[in-house]
C-alpha cells in the first residue's frame, strides 16, 4: 500500500484486498449498533450526573445534532469508498482517492470507528499501545489491527492538513 498526496487529494494506491476490505468496513465499524459501551463513548456525558438539567437538555438538543454530524461524516466516507466496489479479485492493487474537501469527514469517521471498536472490545491501554502485536490470530487481534490501521490513516490526513 502506498499513500501520497496528489493535487491536494489523498491517494491510497496498491491496496491489497485485505486492506481494501478494512477500508470498506469503516462505516460499519463506526456504528455503535446499539452496543451500550460504544454508544456511551460516542455520546458521552457533558457534565457530572449532578447537573441533571444540563444533561437532560444535552440529550434533547445536542445529542441529535451530534448524531447528524457523525452520520454525515460516515455518509461522505461511504460515497468515497464506492471506488472500491467490486469482488475480492477486482480489489487487488486498487486505488482510493480521498478529495481534500472530505478530509475532515474521514478524520471523523476514522475516529468514530476506532472509538467504537475499542469500546466494543474493551481494549486496555497497554493493548492499544502494542503496535507490534502480530500475527493476527483472533478476531480481537484483527480489531486491534483495524484500530492501528485507521490511526495510521488519521495521522497521514492530519499531517496532510498541517502542511
Amino acid at each position, binding site marked *: 500500500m502506498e499513500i501520497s498526496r496528489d493535487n491536494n487529494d489523498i491517494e491510497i494506491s496498491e491496496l491489497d484486498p485485505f486492506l481494501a476490505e478494512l477500508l470498506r468496513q469503516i462505516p460499519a465499524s463506526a456504528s455503535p449498533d446499539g452496543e451500550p459501551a460504544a454508544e456511551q463513548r460516542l455520546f458521552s456525558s*457533558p457534565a457530572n450526573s449532578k447537573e441533571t438539567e444540563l444533561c437532560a437538555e444535552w440529550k434533547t438538543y445536542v445529542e441529535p445534532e451530534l448524531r447528524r*454530524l457523525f452520520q454525515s461524516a460516515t455518509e461522505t466516507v461511504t460515497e468515497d469508498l464506492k471506488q472500491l466496489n467490486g469482488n475480492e479479485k477486482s480489489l487487488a492493487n486498487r486505488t482510493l482517492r480521498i478529495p481534500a474537501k472530505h478530509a475532515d469527514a474521514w478524520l*471523523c469517521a476514522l475516529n468514530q470507528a476506532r472509538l467504537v471498536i475499542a469500546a466494543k472490545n474493551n481494549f486496555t491501554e497497554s493493548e492499544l499501545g502494542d*503496535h507490534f502485536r502480530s500475527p493476527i490470530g483472533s478476531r480481537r487481534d484483527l480489531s486491534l489491527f483495524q484500530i*492501528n490501521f485507521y490511526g495510521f490513516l488519521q495521522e497521514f490526513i492530519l499531517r496532510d492538513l498541517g502542511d
Partner: protein
Amino acid sequence: MIDSLFEVRASYVSVSAMSREPRLEVECRAQSKETEGTTQVLDEAGSVTTADPTTETHSEEDLDLPWQVVVHNDPVNLMSYVTMVFQRVFGYPREKAERHMLEVHHKGRSVLWAGMREPAELYVQQLHGYLLLATLEKLS
C-alpha cells in the same frame, strides 16, 4: 505491506493517576471595597482608584463565571488529533495546544477554558463533535 503498517508509531493520550489543581485561565479581577459611599478599587498593578458606587455592580457574567471546560484522557485518540482539535476549537497556537494535550496525556485531564456557562457549553459541544471526552464543570 502489513510490515510497513507496523512501522507507524501512533501516539496515544494515556491515563495517569496523577491529579492536579484546576487552573483557571480567567484574567485576575480587580478587588473592590466600598467605603463611605465610594468604592476603592485595587487594580492588578496594586494601585487604588476610587470609583462611583452607582456604576460598580455585579453583572450576570460575574455571577456566572465559575464554569470550566475540562478535557479528559482517552487512550484511543491520537495525540496529534487532540492537538489539532484544541487549535481549531479554541484558536490556540500549536505550542499551547500541545501543552494542554500533554497535560491530558500525563495528568488525565486539562482545563482548557473557564468562563460563562453559555460559551463553555458551546466549547464542550464542539469538543464532543470531535469525539473528545469533555465536560463542563462548575467550580465550587
